[in-house]
């Protein structure tokens, strides 16, 4: 099976579920003009967990992602990733430390072939330095072969294999989401931050993405933090749910606890039915 082959190329995962936070954020502050988009958000993400980040529109979820991954500079606060302070580090440094994010509006590189999108993401390619094209051509070629093989395997997993040589611009919205997910995996991350990974994907492929996510978690000890609006997905596939509203964390806990939390119901639905009883479509 193709998935098995993918797993083999990655080193053994650290012991799973030790309860230690891989990511700890505290007191983060980010204003746009006079508006506090992130207003003291604080939470931990356990290593080897799947954590959902939910909240009404404008709660600051995507801004928080941008602050954590260095795309926005926090005015205050702390972001500890694997016990290392990364607040205000530039995005490429954060990504190289093993925390990689995807985007709500996909950033598939439309003017590059699908396979190039994938191969771009691979780390440790000596040929990305100009002098190595002269000094280490053999190492560059060897790494390219390795990376291409892995990229092709991953594309198969997400049923994009046949599109490998097409420009990514021809992909549908859902396929772009899958490509972005697969591309993020090419970076060999320890933790993935996914911004609405399911939006626009057909249910079958969406299921495949979730399945793959769970597999990466159990087989490779990866950690996932994802923003999602589909409550069925949130309640069914996460170990912990963090609820944001107005730039703050208003509740967190197991899906069942959060679902019944009155603060959440008030903030999220403005009163009324419990969350998850009727998943929005």
């Amino acid at each position: 099976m193709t998935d098995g082959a993918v797993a083999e190329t990655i080193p053994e995962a650290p012991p799973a579920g030790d309860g230690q936070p891989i990511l700890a954020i505290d007191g983060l502050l980010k204003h746009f003009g006079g508006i506090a988009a992130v207003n003291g958000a604080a939470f931990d993400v356990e290593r080897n967990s799947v954590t959902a980040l939910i909240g009404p529109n404008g709660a600051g979820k995507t801004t928080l992602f941008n602050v954590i991954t260095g795309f926005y500079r926090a005015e205050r606060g702390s972001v500890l990733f694997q016990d290392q302070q990364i607040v205000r580090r530039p995005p490429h440094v954060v990504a190289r430390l093993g925390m990689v994010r995807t985007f709500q509006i996909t950033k598939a590189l439309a003017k590059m072939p699908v396979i190039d999108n994938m191969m771009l993401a691979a780390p440790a390619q000596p040929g990305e330095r100009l002098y190595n094209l002269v000094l280490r051509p053999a190492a560059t070629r060897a790494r390219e072969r390795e990376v291409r093989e892995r990229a092709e395997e991953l594309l198969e997993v997400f049923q994009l294999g046949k599109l490998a040589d097409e420009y990514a611009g021809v992909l549908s919205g859902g396929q772009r989401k899958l490509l972005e997910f697969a591309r993020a995996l090419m970076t060999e991350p320890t933790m993935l931050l996914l911004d609405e990974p399911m939006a626009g994907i057909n249910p079958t492929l969406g299921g495949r993405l979730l399945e793959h996510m769970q597999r990466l978690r159990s087989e490779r000890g990866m950690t996932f933090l994802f923003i999602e609006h589909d409550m069925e997905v949130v309640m069914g596939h996460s170990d912990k749910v963090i609820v944001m509203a107005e730039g703050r964390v208003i509740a967190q806990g197991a899906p069942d606890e959060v679902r019944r939390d009155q603060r959440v119901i008030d903030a999220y639905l403005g009163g009324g039915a419990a969350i998850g009883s009727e998943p929005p479509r």
Partner: protein
Amino acid sequence: MTLPLGVTFEAFTDFGFWTSVGILAGTYVLFTLGLQLNVGYTGIVNFGQAGFMAIGAYAMGVLVVKADWSFWLALPTAVFIAIGFGLLVGLPSLRLRADYFAIATIAAAEIVRITALNLRDVTGGNQGLFGFDDSWNNLADQIESWLVSLGWSDPEQLFPLFLVVWVTALIATVLLNFATKSPWGRVLRAVREDEDAARALGKNTLAYKLQSLAIASTLGALAGFFVAINLNFLTPEAFLPAFTFIGYAVLVLGGLASYWGVAAGAIVMWTILEGTRFIDLPISAEREAAVRFMIVGLVLILLMAFRPQGMFGKKEEMVLGD
């Protein structure tokens, strides 16, 4: 109103004509390859290429004439000075949005030109800077006698320059092709399309943009050397912003994101520009010069309308106009 009266085609069979067109075209190939790398493959809009060319040319000229350096030592030094200048301009301004960067580069280029115009003690101002090309002339003589030994009884005087310009341009084209197809070039193309996507995947995009600019500066400096040698002297007039814009016209003509397109575009452009000299209109020479550029403009408009990707560009990778 009478239309073209006498158009003579004699010039087109004249080897000397093609040699001088070839030198101009080859110089523009080098110049525009830098623009292609920046605009076509990195997505940074460099409007200051004439400035990098001026820095390279003047650094070489001043080192040889005023500081008595060897021509062959002055060349690489001038390249490094041009790179230094490119980084100096790029480091603060590449963090800006693309349009601000364009403005910053054109300003930098004008600063260079106007400084050259006014720093008369060093650059000779608009009187020009002479006497840097003795070593080149020796080499040209050697090439000429080599050509004679190959059996060419009376080689065209400018042919050695033509030869060196095109060998340099071809080497640069091949090297850039190789570099752009590499993993390094893949990162550049990612930066071109979406810098944030590249950063999210762990690429230090500023470093890549600076490298792209440094290479463009190098190519600009090389073009500057050949402009200087071709003119036999240096004058600020040779580095007007118009030079950069003709470079852009070559780029669009040949096609964005194609290095071979640059060569084709430069040849076509200079054939048109020089060939139209021979259109004999019953108007003053000044107006005729203007008409030549009108023809170039018309060609570009038609090209944009019917083949926006240029001669060799890929429609799927078009970076402008979408």
